[in-house]
C-alpha cells in the first residue's frame, strides 16, 4: 500500500516495488521523504511525539552485588539501557586530572570552588550491545565523554557529598564498628589528617539500539545516581598504628602509613545530590521536506534507521524541570549541529519549549 504509493511517484504504471523495510535499507533518504510527505514518520509517530519512557530504579543493587552502589534500567520505546554504578576511593590531596581540565573551560567553575569544594562527576563507560567485541567505538567513546562532562557541568554532585567525613573503627575483639563523632576527632589525628573521598564509576549497557543513545544514557545515569548509597568506611583498630615501608623506584625505602580502609556492607549513606540541578535530556532533528517550499520541520526523539542516517541537523537539550515558584527553566546544556539543513530560529525555540515540557513530564512521572 504504502510502497505502492511511494513507487508511483517514481514511475507510473506498475513499477518495481520494494517493501518498506527494504526501501529503508537501500535508500533511507527516499524512504524518509516519502513518509514525511504523507505527514508521517517512519516510526509512525507524529512529528513532535516522544516515545514512552519507562524506568526501574535500584533493582540491581542488592545484598548480592554489594559493589553495585546504585542502578537503573530505563526503556525508551524498544531501546533500553542498564546502568550500574560502582565506586572507588581516592586520597583527596591527589588532584583528579580530568576534572582539572574542565575547570579551565568553565569560567564559573572557579567561583564555585571558592565557596565549596567544587563539583564531581562520574566516570562512565558506555557499551552498545551490537554483537561485537573489541575496543569501544567512536560513538561509545563520545557518549561516555559527553556524559562525564554533562554531569560535571550540571553541578549535580558536589565534592563534599563524596568526601568521607568520618571513618569508623572496628573493635578487634567484638568486630563492632563504631562511628562516633568524638572518636572521629581522635582518629583524625591518628590518621595524620589524611582524607579520602569516593569516586563514582558507571557502566551503561545499551540494548536494542535504534536511535541516538546519549539522551537515554544521561537520563538513566541521573536516575541511577539518585539511588546511590555509599557504604561507610571503617578501619581496623589494630591497623591504625601499622606502618608499611613503601619502596619507590630509585630511592631508598620510605616509611609511610598505609591505611587499609574497609567498607561496611550494612551501613550506607545515600549520596546527596543537588536536586535542583537534576536535568533530563531530549533530542530533536530538523529536516526539509522535499518538493515543498515550506520551512524545515522539527522531529522530536529521533528513531529508526531512516531518520538517523538522513537527518544530520540535530539538537540535544538538557533542561531541569520548572520550579513551581519561578517560571524560568534552567537549561543545562544545548547542543546543536546543523550539518544537514539549516535550523531556523523558530524551530530552535520550539525545540526548547518541547524539551521543557518533556522534562517536566518525565519529572512528574518519575518522582511519583
Amino acid at each position: 500500500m504504502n510502497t505502492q504509493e511511494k513507487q508511483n511517484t517514481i514511475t507510473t504504471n506498475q513499477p518495481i516495488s520494494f517493501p518498506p523495510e527494504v526501501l529503508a535499507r537501500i535508500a533511507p533518504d527516499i524512504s524518509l521523504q516519502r513518509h514525511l510527505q504523507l505527514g508521517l514518520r517512519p516510526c509512525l509517530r507524529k512529528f513532535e511525539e516522544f516515545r514512552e519512557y519507562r524506568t526501574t530504579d535500584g533493582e540491581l543493587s542488592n545484598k548480592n552485588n554489594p559493589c553495585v552502589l546504585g542502578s537503573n534500567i530505563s526503556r525508551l520505546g524498544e531501546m533500553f539501557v542498564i546502568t550500574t554504578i560502582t565506586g572507588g576511593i581516592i586520597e583527596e590531596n591527589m588532584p583528579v586530572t580530568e576534572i582539572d581540565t574542565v575547570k579551565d573551560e568553565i569560567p564559573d567553575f572557579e567561583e564555585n570552588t571558592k565557596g565549596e569544594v567544587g563539583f564531581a562527576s562520574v566516570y562512565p563507560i558506555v557499551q552498545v550491545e551490537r554483537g561485537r567485541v573489541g575496543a569501544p567505538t567512536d560513538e561509545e567513546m563520545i557518549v561516555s565523554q559527553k556524559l562525564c562532562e554533562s554531569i560535571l557541568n550540571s553541578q549535580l554532585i558536589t565534592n563534599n557529598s563524596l568526601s568521607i567525613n568520618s571513618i569508623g573503627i572496628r573493635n578487634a575483639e567484638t568486630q563492632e564498628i563504631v562511628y562516633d563523632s568524638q572518636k572521629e576527632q581522635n582518629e583524625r589525628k591518628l590518621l595524620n589528617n589524611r582524607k579520602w573521598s569516593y569516586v563514582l564509576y558507571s557502566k551503561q549497557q545499551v540494548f536494542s539500539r535504534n536511535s541516538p543513545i546519549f539522551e537515554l544514557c544521561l537520563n538513566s545515569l541521573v536516575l541511577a545516581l539518585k539511588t546511590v548509597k555509599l557504604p561507610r568506611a571503617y578501619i581496623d583498630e589494630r591497623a591504625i598504628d601499622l606502618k608499611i615501608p613503601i619502596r619507590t623506584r630509585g630511592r631508598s625505602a620510605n616509611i609511610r602509613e598505609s591505611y587499609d580502609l574497609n567498607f561496611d556492607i550494612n551501613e550506607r549513606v545515600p549520596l546527596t545530590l543537588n536536586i535542583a540541578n537534576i536535568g533530563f535530556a531530549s533530542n530533536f532533528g530538523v529536516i526539509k521536506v522535499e518538493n515543498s517550499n515550506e520551512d524545515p520541520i522539527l522531529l522530536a526523539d529521533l528513531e529508526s534507521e531512516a531518520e538517523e542516517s538522513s537527518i544530520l541537523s540535530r539538537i540535544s537539550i538538557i533542561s531541569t524541570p520548572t520550579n513551581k515558584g519561578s517560571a524560568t527553566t534552567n537549561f543545562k546544556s544545548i547542543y546543536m549541529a546543523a550539518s544537514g539543513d539549516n535550523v531556523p530560529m523558530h524551530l530552535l525555540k520550539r525545540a526548547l519549549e518541547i524539551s521543557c515540557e518533556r522534562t517536566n513530564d518525565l519529572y512528574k512521572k518519575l518522582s511519583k
Partner: protein
Amino acid sequence: MLDSSRYPEKVLPGDLISPLYDIDNNNEKIVYSFHPGPGTTITKYKINSQEHKVLIATLKGFVHFEELVKTNIDSEGKESEKKEENDTENKNKLADELEAPEVNSDRIIKKYTVIVSKEKKNEMMQDPNLQEGQQDEVNNDFANNLPKEGDIVLCKVTRISAQKANVEILVVENNNCLKDSGVGTNGAGVSSVTGGSGAVTFFISQASSDLGETFKGVIRSQDVRATERDSVKITECFKPGDIVRCKVLSLGDGNNYYLTTAKNYLGVVFAKSLGGAGELMYAIDWKTMIAPTSQVLEQRKCAKPF
C-alpha cells in the same frame, strides 16, 4: 492428495515430521516421498532398536507439504536426474514395508518437499526466482536468507574499476532484512576518516575488518549485459553509491559473491546524479538516466522499472 492431517501441523525443532517414504491410507499404490526443504532435515531415529531415516523439523513453525513433480515409475528415462537422487536415498532407506520403488513398477511416487515456516498459510511463498514479475509479498520467514545462487539481491556499488564493480549486498530481494545489519548494529556510519576506532571492533566470526559487515559481491564487466559483452565500460554502467539489482551467479570465493546484471530487469534502480551530490534520477531507457529538474543525463545500465 496428501492427507496432511496424518502429520504434525505445528512443530518445534527436533520434532519428528514424517518418515522419508509413506503410503497413502486409501490407495496402497501411491507412495509419498518426502524431501527436506527449508526448516527440515534428515536424521536417523531408532524405533524398536531399528534405525530409520526420518524428517525432523529444525525450526519452530507450521509444516507445509509442497508437491514437487508427479512421477510415474514407468517414465523413468525422462527423469534421469531426479531419479538418481531418489535411488541413492533408496539405498540407504530401511523402511521395511516398502521395497525400492523401481521394483514395484505399478506404484506411483509423489514427491513432496517438506517445509517448516512461521506462517500458517497454506499458500507457501514461491522461491523468489528469476521471473520478471515480482511478488508483492515479503517473505518474512527465514533468517536463512543468505544469498544463494539465482537469488535477486539489492546492492550498493562501493568501488568501480575497468574490469569490475565491487558492491556490498544490502538485502536479498523479497526476503526480510536481517535486523542486525542496520544502523543499530553497525553504527551510524559516520566515523572519522581514518575509520575511527570502529575499525578496531569486529564481530567474532571474522578476524578483522572494517565496521559494517555486509556480504560483498563483484559484477565483472562481462556480466553487466548479455550483448556486446566485450565492449562494456564499467564507468558507463555504474557509479559508486548506486543501488543495483543483481542476480547471484555463484557463491564465489571467500570474499565475494559473483553477481550479474545481464537481464532487462536487472541493473541500477536508484542513482543520484553528479556522483551522489545531485538529485535522484529516473531511467528513460536501458542505458540512460535523467535528473528531473536539472535535466542532467547520465549513463547507467538501468533495470527495467516496470
